[in-house]
């Protein structure tokens, strides 16, 4: 599928860039509160409790790091066509996780943005996840190569911008986490 017309092309580019920035922010924020996010991951890990306890922190770290990497790659290499299905798959996972979370664990915190998230698994959240999936699907549409073909310097610049987004999310989530969960004396 190829986007024809200025507005459609802008919409595709906007979806692509927005999802990249969103992944960077979500991953960065999760990294600041891995223990909290692991408690959410634990809800989705099948098996007996001790195994879930052992695996969930590793999975949480992998998911957070994966989001940051996918976001950084998507932001700095928009011409790489293989990244579009990867981002679409990630967004599909979000939608599935939200649906399962709502069905099985309604009322539990999603921690999609680490300690920055006050959201719980709700129908509205499923709607947002489906919206993201649609945006990711739209981002797979083709656009003129000239608008996504970047020089090395530009890629590095965007990578730097992406790093700033992830660091800002990390800092904000760390501040919010410290506020909500004070260490015991």
């Amino acid at each position: 599928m190829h986007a024809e017309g200025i507005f459609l092309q802008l919409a595709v580019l906007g979806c692509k860039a927005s999802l990249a920035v969103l992944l960077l922010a979500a991953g960065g924020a999760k990294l600041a509160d891995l223990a909290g996010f692991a408690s959410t991951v634990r809800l989705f890990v099948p098996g007996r409790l001790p195994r879930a306890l052992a695996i969930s922190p590793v999975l949480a770290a992998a998911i957070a790091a994966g989001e940051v990497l996918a976001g950084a790659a998507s932001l700095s290499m928009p011409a790489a066509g293989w990244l579009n299905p990867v981002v679409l798959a990630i967004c599909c996972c979000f939608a599935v996780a939200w649906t399962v979370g709502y069905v099985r664990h309604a009322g539990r915190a999603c921690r999609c943005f680490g300690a920055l998230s006050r959201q719980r698994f709700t129908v509205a959240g499923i709607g947002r996840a489906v919206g993201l999936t649609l945006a990711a699907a739209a981002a797979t549409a083709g656009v003129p190569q000239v608008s996504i073909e970047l020089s090395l310097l530009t890629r590095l610049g965007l990578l730097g911008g992406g790093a700033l987004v992830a660091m800002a999310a990390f800092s904000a989530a760390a501040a919010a986490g410290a506020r909500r969960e004070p260490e015991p004396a």
Partner: protein
Amino acid sequence: MIAAAIGFVGIAVILCVAAVFGLLGVGQIALSGADAIERDGLARGRPAPRWSLADSRGVVRSSPPASKLQLIVFADHSLKSFPSVVAGLRELSHRGDVEIVILTRGRHEGAEALIDQLGLGAVAVLAGSAAIYGRYNVRVMPFAIFVDSAGLVRASSLVNHDWQIAKLRQVAEIPLEADELPGGSSTRIASAV
């Protein structure tokens, strides 16, 4: 061709800048909001630890205070590095309705002389302990906690700057004196948070 001219880079840069500013704003709110002021210390409304300690002159001070509102300042000689905090405490010590005590972590020789040098001569200096600091969940200094005569925590916060003392007073709902009001109005108000 407009899309090509603006391209992915333009949109990405705008989004990155917006995201960074937005996230920094969220972080700032998290650090300076009303909740954050109780990050360490004890939550507002929680019963404060009870203790009685004698200062170097043998005068016994207790918490909770018998009648006044009490400001417990967890500090040591490093307080001199925070002149705006000292100024805020000095100003507060002139009020009759707040009893200020400085609680050190252990006995410090010369602490009273130093506090006197800082113009806080009217403030009692008590030798606390790591255990007392632990009961108040205080890990960093200078830290301040308002306790009322009912033994409840009114507000608690790290105090590195005078504005944090002002914020603490706001949270503790300590009325402003007439000369502290904008325009010098004689009306006393209770600050709400």
